[in-house]
């Protein structure tokens, strides 16, 4: 351990959890380094989240996950509108299609009460069909969860990373951690492509690879088995069909296939749940897509008449344990934050708060930074708020906000320019898509693909 390590805290992984932890720690007088193997923040598992803002009503009572999702819901609900993360409170309807599924309702309500969710109520078939008229035939009834909502899975990690960087965080993208070892006299040495990085404290938020980092340090608490979830996104013209998040009654294995609006005004169908061998196997499959189309046709037949805008697959960092794998190894100064599944988006701020408390108890000095958090606001890419092209003030101040480049998603030239020059700038087409929605729409680049490629090409030169 050098006299003064390169950084105070190194966080491995800039997914939604790593970014939330970086943001949380950067509120204090600390040197924080955030390392991401991929080309961008939130570009691994986080970007393929089902994008629900969970209340945690259906978590297993008494678990850390149940507590952090409930707390995270409150924290993110407060933070999101403040910094411009799109959120929509549509409410959810958990629909029973059989007598057996309806028989699960009392247990679901009991668990929700144990989790502190008191806003659930059962809804009979008549009310269900009047509120969700395009549901397929045969629904028995539903449980309404009024506070469930949608949150932008792209803007959330970007907002955390932006606040962290504005507060002094050293964000390094395309920087995979090749190995980790304990340094003599305390702290850790990380081997990176460009050399070594010494740190006093280490936070493992490596998602799918969190078990590998954990093993490098001699721990053997869990193994990540990637569980693939395939999703189909339907055209915006399908949006009027769906008013709520339509959930399925969960089984032991999966929460089932859901249909939900997205904050971008599309309709999402999915996910599948399938354990796969490789941690980079984000390919969709014929069988998965056929299964989803079958389920979609049963839940909401009219949905299938609409065009599919996108198909993608994400990998959940599932482990052999039912709960998040969060552990503070006090003497060495190592926090492991693994096994965070899809609820991690909703829970992210609470996970960060929890990890910060644990680090504090382990001896990390937490002196609040003078001056408070930085002032910033993310560009709005959600349909619930005003988009750039809808704002007369913005267009009057800069005509580039009136020049629409991506027609399907109505993304302006000004927004693309801003994304390429942001605090955490886009470095590739995928990054541009997540920051602006450009190229994410029904034409998938037929009209704007070449223009975006040219702009990225110009930027790279």
């Amino acid at each position, binding site marked *: 351990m050098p006299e003064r390590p390169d950084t105070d805290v190194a966080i491995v992984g800039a997914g939604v959890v790593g970014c939330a932890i970086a943001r949380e720690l950067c509120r204090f007088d600390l040197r924080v380094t955030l390392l991401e193997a991929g080309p961008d923040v939130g570009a691994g598992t986080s970007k393929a989240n089902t994008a629900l803002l969970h209340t945690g009503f259906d978590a297993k009572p008494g678990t850390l996950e149940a507590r952090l999702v409930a707390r995270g819901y409150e924290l993110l609900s407060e933070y999101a509108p403040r910094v411009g993360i799109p959120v929509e409170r549509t409410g959810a309807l958990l629909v029973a299609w059989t007598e057996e599924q309806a028989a699960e309702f009392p247990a679901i309500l009991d668990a929700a009460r144990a989790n502190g969710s008191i806003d659930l109520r059962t809804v009979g078939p008549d009310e269900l069909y009047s509120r969700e008229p395009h549901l397929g035939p045969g629904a028995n009834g539903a449980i309404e969860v009024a506070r469930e909502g949608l949150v932008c899975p792209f803007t959330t990690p970007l907002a955390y990373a932006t606040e962290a960087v504005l507060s002094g965080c050293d964000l390094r993208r395309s920087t995979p951690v090749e190995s980790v070892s304990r340094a003599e006299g305390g702290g850790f040495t990380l081997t990176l492509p460009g050399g070594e990085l010494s740190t006093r404290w280490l936070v493992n938020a490596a998602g799918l690879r969190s078990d590998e980092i954990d093993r490098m340090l001699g721990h053997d608490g869990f193994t990540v088995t990637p569980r693939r979830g395939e999703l189909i996104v339907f055209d*915006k*013209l399908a949006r009027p069909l769906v008013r709520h998040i339509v959930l399925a009654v969960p089984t032991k294995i999966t929460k089932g296939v859901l249909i939900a609006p997205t904050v971008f005004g599309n309709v999402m169908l999915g996910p599948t749940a399938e354990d796969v061998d490789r941690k*980079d196997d*984000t*390919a*969709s*499959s*014929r069988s*998965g*897509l056929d299964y989803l*189309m079958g389920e979609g046709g049963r839940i909401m037949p009219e949905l299938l008449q609409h*065009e*599919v*805008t*996108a*198909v*993608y697959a994400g990998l959940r960092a599932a482990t052999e344990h039912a709960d998040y794998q969060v552990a503070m190894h006090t003497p060495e100064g190592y926090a492991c934050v693994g096994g965070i599944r899809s609820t991690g988006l909703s829970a992210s701020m609470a996970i960060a708060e929890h990890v910060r408390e644990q680090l504090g108890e382990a001896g990390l000095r937490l002196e609040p930074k003078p001056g408070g958090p930085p002032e910033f606001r993310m560009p709005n890419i959600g349909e619930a708020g005003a988009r750039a*092209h*809808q704002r*007369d003030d913005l*267009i*009057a101040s800069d*005509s*580039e906000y*009136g*020049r*629409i480049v991506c*027609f399907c998603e*109505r993304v302006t030239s000004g927004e693309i320019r801003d994304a390429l020059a942001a605090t955490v700038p886009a470095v590739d*087409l995928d990054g541009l898509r997540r920051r602006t929605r450009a190229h994410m729409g*029904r*034409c*998938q*680049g*037929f*009209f704007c*693909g*070449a*223009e975006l*490629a*040219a702009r990225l*090409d110009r930027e790279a030169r």
Partner: protein
Amino acid sequence: MTVVVLGGGPAGLAAAVELCRLATRDVIVVEREVDAGGIPRHAQHQGFGIRDLRRPLSGPAYARRYASIAAGAGADIRTGTMVTSWSPGGPLELTGPGGRETIDPDALILATGCRERPRSARLVPGSRPEGVMTTGTLQQLVYLKELTVGERALIVGAEHVSFSALVTLGHGGATAVGMTTELPRHQTLGLFRAGAALRWRTPLWTRTAVSAIHGRPRVEEVELTDLDSGATRTVECDTVVFTADWIPDHELAVIGGLDMDPGTRGPAVDAALRTSREGVFAAGNLLHAAEPADVAALSGRHAAATAAAHVRGSAWPEHRIAIECEPPLRWISPNVLSGEPSSPPRGSFALRSTEFASRPRVQVTQDDRTIWDGRISKLVPGRSARLAAGWTAAVDAAGGPVRVRVVHRG
């Protein structure tokens, strides 16, 4: 009297020229691209302008020529401007660099064109690598942006536009490793196929589906499935071009509350190209995707004539009779009969089929009464056959829907 034309491609520009010629006062063309001209702007091969301008031109030359004719005729062409809101009964909201404005024209011609369905809409599974695109993107990359497009490309589709993609790839320095079609043979002109075979030696794989795409970060290989045997094989390539499989760009038509035709997926129109909403017309490839640019232009010209008559006070017919077709026919256009019998664009209805037929016998019936029975030219998927419009005078205005079917494949 203000007439707004939405879309400054061949159909929209031709409509604007005709409106100006018919002395319609204010003609506004709204074009969301930086330049007017539509898809021909980036289709750099020859063969444009034969049917409408009576001279052979390249795509870009045709686009420039039409834009200048329309501007010269007095049309107000607003480029970089897009309709951002419309509703059944409501005015149009336009957004451009100058800000937002609303406009409530006396007549509106929708000419918003079409696009190729992308890989996602075709539900082709696999990873999501770079290098997967439509012909539209490919042409713009090569001809408008002069960017590279990879080295080895697979072309999905074997229609006219697929051969245009082949030419574009050659221009961009890429080799086409093959063309696939799920049909038993290509759907372009024999001359194009023979020329392509001779010049590029590109194999054409018929009855073949693209069943998966693999690679990261760029395409590495594509899995092909033989539809007859079910056998799969892989082809190494770094680019996949999804061609044809056109769909009308119909978002505005849908949000404006127009009746849509289930076959064409464009607005349902009568022979005068009137939609279900008074004062609203539709033309070009929005009606049925896709036709060559000059055919779209003639459709625009046709809509302009009836739009001009409408703003001068001609009555809007209320009763509409649907024209329906049976498989293997996919659609017919125009697909509604209303008002006094009138001639559709080019004097005929366009018919599309999902199957080949060399000299099909077609029957037109209404309420079990045969109105017309005869042979038409050959049916080729992806290309329109023409059904002369003489029979419309025999339709009973108080009768049920008119049905069109193939009774013998010939």
